Each structure stands twice: as C-alpha cells, then as structure tokens.
C-alpha cells in the first residue's frame, strides 16, 4: 500500500490531449463494479428481474412485426419477419445503447465527477461493455429464432466478432462526440433522441436495402451503419450479398478515426466539466 509511485505532475491543460489508457487499465476493478452496478440497479425491484433483458428485444420485435409486417406490409426479401427484424434490431440496439449511454456518461455522473478523481473514460467504457452484454443476450434469442426457421449456424459466424468490434468502435466514437458536445451545448441532450430516431429510419433495419431506389443507395452507404447491418444480416441469414472488402476497409478506418476524435473531444470535456458545473 505504501509502495512509492512515480510522481504525478498536474499542469494546465494544453490543446488536445488523448485519454491515458494505461490509467484506465489501472482502474479495471472500477470498470467491473460499474458494469455490475448498472446491471443490478436496472433489475432491482423489477418483478421479473433479469428476464427483462430477454423480454425487451422480444417485445420490440413483436411491435415491429405488427406494425411493419402485418399493417404496413414492408417486404423483407422473403425472409421470415421475426428473423428479419431481430437480425437488424440486435445491431441497432447495440449502436443505440452505446451512443446513448456514452453520450450521457459525463453529465449523468456529474455528482461523482466533481468530487472524486478517476479516469472518466471508465464511465462510457463500462456502459459500452454493458451494451455488449445485452447484445449477447438478444443475439442468443436471435439464434433460437434462426434455428427454428432453418437458418443453420455456419462458418459465416466467424466474421461476427469482427463486426461486433467494428460496431463498438464506431458507436463509442459517435457517443463520445455527442457526450463532449453535450457539455458545451446542453441542447444536444434533447436533440440526440431525434437524431437517433432519424438515424434508425435511414438505416435498413425495418426494411431491406433492395427496396431502396438505386439513386439513393449511395446516400445510404455513407451511413456506416447501413454496411454493418447488411454485413450482420449476411452473417445471420446469408441471403443478401456481403458488402465489398474495400467497403469494410473504408468503414473500419472511418470508425477508428471517429473513435480517436471522440476520445480526444471527451478528454478535453472531462477536463472542463468540473469547471463548468
């Protein structure tokens, strides 16, 4: 406990800085307890508890099924509705949850941030891991539906960890950027909900890319989520074609760049937030 440490020098902030990832690693136990806190608090005092984690995607899928499958009758390229929606929903939900929780992680924990020092990046990181846990649950649910609908478990699934990682990187980058913006302009908090709602409708989650007119397709593929959702569907269903390798390279590089910018923006805001509040 009284081991000598290398002195920490605290000086004024200067320009752009990058979060100290080594320090985040030092606080990995905090990361674990934060994930545990969020899970426990979420299901505390609910009647069916952890069952919600399974029920949430199921109910959401049912709503999509009734509205878009039965009432609006959106085509799904002949793919059964439950697997079609669920395969898009798991990706969208992963993105949505990471963006929302990362964006609000600074302001939402302001009472702690202004009282204790700890690497702030542990907050969005913990919620990101929480979102991945949710993803794994809804993914297991999807697997059940896939097998029930005679979509076998193939070697395409080997691509899945890479796709999940890419989604995590991109979503975390977007979330951190919004989080930083929120510290300067509180309006962002109100705007974010609408932005995400629009984002969902311009991503082929509730409809297949095949119903999108040719002239708008380019616009759709500027949205990195379009390619991701398509790639996930290819893994799960194997029906549509996999986006090209070039596309993956470009979107991977883009995702990493967005994450790096997001981390720097987050870092400069975490320095400032204690002064602004």
């Amino acid at each position, binding site marked *: *406990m*009284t081991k000598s*440490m290398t*002195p*920490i*020098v*605290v*000086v*004024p*902030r200067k320009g752009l800085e990058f979060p100290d990832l080594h320090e985040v690693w*030092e*606080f990995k*136990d*905090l990361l*674990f*307890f*934060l994930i*545990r*806190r969020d899970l*426990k*608090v979420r299901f*505390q*005092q609910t009647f069916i508890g952890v069952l919600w984690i399974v029920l949430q995607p199921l109910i959401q899928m049912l709503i999509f099924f009734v509205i878009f499958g039965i009432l609006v009758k959106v085509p799904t390229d002949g793919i059964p509705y439950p697997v079609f929606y669920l395969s898009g929903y798991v990706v969208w939900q992963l993105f949505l949850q990471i963006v929302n929780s990362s964006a609000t992680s600074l302001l939402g924990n302001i*009472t*702690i*941030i*202004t*009282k*204790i*020092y*700890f690497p702030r990046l542990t907050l969005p990181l913990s919620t990101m891991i929480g979102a991945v846990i949710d993803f794994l649950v809804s993914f297991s649910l999807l697997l059940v539906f896939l097998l029930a609908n005679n979509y076998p478990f193939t070697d395409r699934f080997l691509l899945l960890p890479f796709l999940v990682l890419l989604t995590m990187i991109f979503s975390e980058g977007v979330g951190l950027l919004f989080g930083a913006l929120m510290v*300067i*302009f*509180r*309006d962002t908090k109100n705007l974010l909900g609408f932005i995400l709602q629009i984002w969902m409708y311009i991503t082929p989650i509730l409809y297949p890319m095949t119903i999108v007119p040719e002239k708008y397709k380019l616009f759709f593929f500027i949205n990195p989520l379009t390619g991701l959702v398509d790639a996930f569907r290819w893994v799960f269903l194997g029906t549509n074609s996999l986006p090209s390798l070039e596309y993956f390279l470009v979107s991977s590089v883009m995702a990493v760049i967005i994450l790096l910018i997001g981390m720097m923006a987050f870092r400069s805001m975490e*320095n400032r937030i*204690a*002064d*602004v509040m």
Partner: protein
Amino acid sequence: MTRYAVRAEDIWKDYKIYRPFEGQGSSLKEVLNHPIRWLTRKNKSTAEIKADGTFWALKGVSFEVQHGESIGLIGRNGAGKSTLLKIISRITRPSRGKLTLYEHVNSLLEIGTGFNGELSGRDNIYLNGSFLGMKYKEIKSRFDEIVAFSEIEEFIDTPVKYYSSGMYVRLAFSVAVHLTPELLLLDEVLAVGDAGFQIKSQQKMKELIRSGATIIFVSHNSAAVKDICKRAIWLDHGSLKMDGLSTEVVDEYNKTCTIK
C-alpha cells in the same frame, strides 16, 4: 528522511463566471435568439470579476507538504480552499502553475459520493472503494473493519436508500478512512454523525496521522484544526495569507473574523 507528499508551485485557477453570452456553457438558444447581442457581447468588469467573466479563485499559491504532515486549510467562504482541494485531488486542473503529487490521493470532498441508493451497503463499499482507485482485493481485506467501524453490521445487505442519514454518513466516512492510501483530502466532513461518532471519527483521523498518512483538511471548526493538525494554511481571496503552526495561524485567522 524528508519525503514530499505534495508540491504546489504558483498555482493559479480562474473560472469563467456564467453570465449570458459568455460562450462557455451557454445554450444554443441564447445565441440563436440574440445573435447580434451575442456577437457584440461585452461585460463590465468588477473588482473580482474581469470583463471577460474571469474570476481568479487562486492567485499564485505555493506550498510544500511533507509525507506524514497534517495540514488544516482555513479561510473564509470563497477564499479558494475547495478549489485548491479540487486541484490537489485532480478533479480540475490549474490554469497556471504546477502541482506535483508524490503519493496516492484519496479525496473525501463530500460524504457518500458515488453511493448508489439501490445497492446494498456491501456493494457500495466495493463500488466506492474502486472509485477511490482501490483494487478488489484491497477492499476485501479491509471489508470487515469498514463494516465494524460504521456500526451497520445488521444492515450491510440492505439497499442504502433505506438507511437513516446517520447510517449512510457513517458508512461513507468509514469507507473513505479505511481505504485511505497515503494522502487524504477532507472537506468539512468531520461534522458527521452524532456526537459519539464525531469523536470516533476524529480519533480515527489522529490514528491515521500517527500511522503516517498525510492529511489535508478543510474546516471552519477552529478547535478541530488545532486539535488534529500541526500545521495550518490560511487562504484569503485566492492567496496564501499565512502558513505555519496551526495554533498560531488559527488564532490570527480568528482575530480577523471577530473584527467587523
């Protein structure tokens, strides 16, 4: 052997005082509603606040703290005590100057920070400890001691939202003082719990000092500062006014308080 705990070299800290159209922290609405006023914004300066809304909370504070020292930080409201603690605890960064920390810092600026009402006392001990940078194993090894000191054994698995405010505060204080690494920063937290617990917590602090911990302690309680700390630092309007033996500094400070 003298060993430094903290070295503060010419620490300055400015805050932008929030006034409409200041830019920082302004809402988009203000800018959009009055774009011309925003572009031509001007603010008058006062003695403390400059024209651009800058307020200097600390104006060139320098001091050194040696390992094992116990220091009382005194001064009027707004003298910069809390700002200084926030800089030492790394919650905020100085605007100018340099601060060097040679020991692990544990700040207790508010009782029960990071506690979650939905979680049990047990869970909160682990969560709070890990916020303070402790490892799971370190917390576990001190767990029984923490619980015993806080006197809440029977309720350790009850969500803390059902705790009385006294129980809550005792648990929070207990976590902080038991998980203390080397340098403990305290802000007005001794006024905690009932009289019995206050005595107990003061004793605990003295025990920490005896065991070699470094303590910086902000308080308006002159008696407690004299009792616990050997040395006191008096801040006045962001500057260091006096630094010396706690008995002398506190007496000097008290003189200025009685003269109106």
